[in-house]
């Protein structure tokens, strides 16, 4: 499904004006009475310095525009479709980690300025590319086709020197390392997974209502049973 088909389902065919320039997406959309800023990546983008800067720039523009012209800051919907960070010597030399940190600071500014932040994973969300902006939203939703991972199992077997067969076997019982949106849901890393039959407009509207400013993921991971140590461990330290 193309992202524009997704937007049609979310906002109706006349309800969105989102432009794709290469692997970058930006624009606005209308959900009922609510006007929404849309920023994201498409086509499994490998996020490099220039793409990170476009994302950051779009966030800063949204913050700046709503600070002066809108009565209330509009929600921002991030569309995450990324195969991860760009892998090149040039990007490393220039400090791609710093470009991603800058994007993260822009996301944080938007949150502090009162923008509600939502992420919709469409396609794939992998590792550093997902960390850069998608994972920092108030509420993270995944479309039914979403692929979420750090690394595929074969590469993981090479690095950890644990056999692929053993990893595959364990992947069925443990959500902790195997790829899959469902695993992230159980661990609180994804708030909701939408089904193909859902009314996506309604789900988006509901997600906007439930978006909270505080990071609730460790608590959710505990509640869903997929991440039982994170919240208690942080608590042990916090009360020490």
């Amino acid at each position, binding site marked *: 499904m193309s992202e524009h088909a997704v937007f049609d389902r979310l906002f109706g065919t006349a309800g969105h004006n989102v432009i794709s320039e290469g692997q970058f997406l930006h624009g606005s959309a209308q959900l009922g009475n609510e006007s929404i800023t849309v920023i994201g990546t498409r086509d499994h983008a490998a996020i490099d310095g220039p793409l990170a800067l476009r994302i950051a720039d779009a966030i800063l523009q949204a913050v700046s525009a709503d600070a002066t012209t809108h009565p209330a800051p509009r929600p921002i919907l991030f569309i995450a479709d990324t195969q991860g960070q760009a892998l090149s*010597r040039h990007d490393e030399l220039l400090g791609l*980690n710093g470009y991603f940190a800058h994007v993260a600071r822009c996301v944080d500014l938007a949150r502090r300025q009162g923008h509600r932040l939502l992420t919709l994973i469409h396609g794939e969300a992998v590792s550093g590319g997902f960390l850069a902006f998608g994972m920092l939203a108030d509420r993270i939703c995944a479309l039914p086709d979403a692929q979420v991972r750090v690394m595929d199992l074969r590469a993981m077997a090479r690095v950890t020197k644990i056999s692929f067969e053993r990893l595959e076997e364990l992947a069925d019982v443990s959500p902790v390392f195997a790829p899959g949106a469902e695993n992230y849901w159980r661990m609180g890393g994804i708030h909701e997974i939408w089904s193909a039959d859902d009314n996506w407009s309604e789900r988006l509207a509901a997600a906007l209502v439930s978006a909270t400013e505080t990071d609730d993921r460790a608590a959710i991971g505990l509640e869903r049973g997929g*991440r039982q140590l994170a919240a208690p461990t942080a608590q042990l330290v916090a009360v020490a």
Partner: protein
Amino acid sequence: MNGRRISYFEASARMRLSGLVDAGSFSEFCPPEMRQTSPHLAQLGAPQAFDDGVVVGRASLAGHAVLIAAQEGRFIGGSVGEVHGAKICGLLDKAMVERPAAVLLLVDSGGVRLHEANAGLIAISEIMRAVLQVQAAGIPVFALVGGSCGAFGGMGIVTRLCAEVVMSEQGRLGLSGPEVIETVKGVEEFDSRDRALVWRITGGKLRRALGDATRLVDDLIPAFRAAAADLIERYQTHPLTPAHLDTLLDEQARLAARSERFASARDGLEIWQAAAFADASQVPELTVEEFNLQLGEPA
């Protein structure tokens, strides 16, 4: 043991910690005897550590209250798993309550621990949000980078979120490690065995010349201590102001200019040249003192 000449690079996390803070001032939270270990490692038949590879606690540094975390790079590459990450998150939560003069992160990590990759990735994103929250509350977070694993993956991003980044020449900072790039893109893109090249792309002298590191210090624990103490003093007189639109627009312009100016750069030598070092090829040979003296404004 002669405490004055201990290499930060060679030292364990606990040695770095005890050499960095005021003598006897450190008290550990969630210490080894609590055995808050990772069950996920055991499941995969990998050894555990009683502190899960990170030491967190409270101390004083030059008389100022600090909260501090030190990652142990020799335990699974200082990687962040569920417990490891949660200890750092808990420390940052605590900072919101205790309001120390600074939070110090002694980063020595390749990023996410693959044995518990999903938990690690979520944890790093929680650390990112927590660092941003702490700094928005006016408490500076410093990253100290000088260990054998450097600061890579998500911990490379966390490091650059920090108000100050203190590095040694031996410290390395980036996103994807050279081995990863070589594996995926081939040896002609990045030869990870060429140590001199690796340091010209990721090392402390390159990061300082770009301004990504804010201090370059000798590979000695007391040198890191002196830099941290000095920075704490500075924030006492000039408190951290939360990032606002103008500061981020400035940073946007700075990074855009960097991308444009070095659009085809592939070697640190080009950055040093631009930073107006008299002879860029000699930069790796300079002592830290000479380097800092010759560095004008970061590129």
